[in-house]
């Protein structure tokens, strides 16, 4: 049986916003993926732009490594503005 490849669909809901992952679908090629995405994910004007990426082309980080991957940024509080004491008289900075 001929299985159509899986595509991940990203939609920009409004001009000026990021494309956001909405789900996946099967399609024979990119054009069909975009057409199907229009029918499946934008029946009520949920989008103004569609990206279709073949799922096999998505490489994901491993959730089991999340601790070691993101931990290092946890101990650098000086990256945040609240780390610094600025006198009230200075006002908003």
């Amino acid at each position: 049986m001929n299985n159509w490849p899986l595509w991940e669909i990203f939609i920009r809901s409004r001009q000026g916003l990021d494309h956001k992952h909405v789900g996946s679908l099967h399609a024979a090629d990119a054009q069909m993926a975009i057409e199907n995405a229009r029918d499946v994910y934008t029946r009520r004007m949920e989008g103004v732009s569609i990206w279709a990426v073949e799922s096999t082309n998505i490489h994901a980080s491993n959730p089991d490594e999340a601790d070691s991957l993101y931990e290092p940024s946890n101990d650098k509080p000086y990256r945040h503005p609240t780390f610094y004491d600025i006198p009230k008289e200075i006002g908003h900075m």
Partner: protein
Amino acid sequence: MTQAQFQARIDADIKIEPKDWMPEAYRKTLIRQISQHAHSEIVGMLPEGNWITRAPSLRRKAILLAKIQDEAGHGLYLYSAAETLGKTRESMIDDLHTGKAKYSSIFNYPTLSWADMGSVGWLVDGAAIMNQVALCRTSYGPYARAMVRICKEESFHQRQGYEVIMTLCRGTAAQKQMAQESLNRWWWPALMMFGPKDEDSPNTEQAMKWRIKRFTNDELRQRFIDATVPQAEFLGLTIPDPDLKWNEERQHYDSGNINWEEFYQVIAGNGPCNTARLAARQKAHDEGEWVREAAMAYSKKQEQRNKQVA
């Protein structure tokens, strides 16, 4: 990750995502529940499809088409969520066709009159919404997100159904009678949609612990009854349950016994339309085979052509 750590995440309401570690039984339960849900959306198009060509006006026909198209979309959102758990679309469809996978028992009942388009939207979608709203907070991320998307669309389904029934109730005596007759046929099957009584639903406890389910079958059924009775009263229709009455102490409606024998018969494949529903799905799948092949062949050819040009 251990089972205990996994449970701790669930208890903290941290969503589980596709690549996260999960107990095999959690994965299996989800695949069963999500694919069953997807099949219900797809098979659920058939009873309503039955009335597209006979809708009484262009307005009703456009609405019915839009609703049925939504249901196809719901099926796709859910298949796509189930696929993130490692089960292929193809094998899910196979399971449906061989009878290994189930779908909601309600869709094995026939739609005999136009009023049934009203009852299906009002009661069947209404019952589905009770279930789906609760599932927006289910523990598996892709399932929860699919549910949020579905819930946004369902409200129109129920409202258009209620409007169909309301229009009939405000029409001639014969039209109102048609609405009542339809309610008589759909009420009990709609209550069965919530599944067996809690004491006969052995999987509920684990599903609740994993927060796959957020409420029990009986809790949701009660909620549906409480919400729907006043809606029927407003229309001047009678719910076909002589034991139905408001219980001041419980602040809920008491209701009569469901015919569980009928429920289990329908689940076992002996409902009025089981054979026809599966045959229709199988036929559509078989007759689409050449389209799927042709689309793939075309895409490969295009790819080759583009390579030659480049």
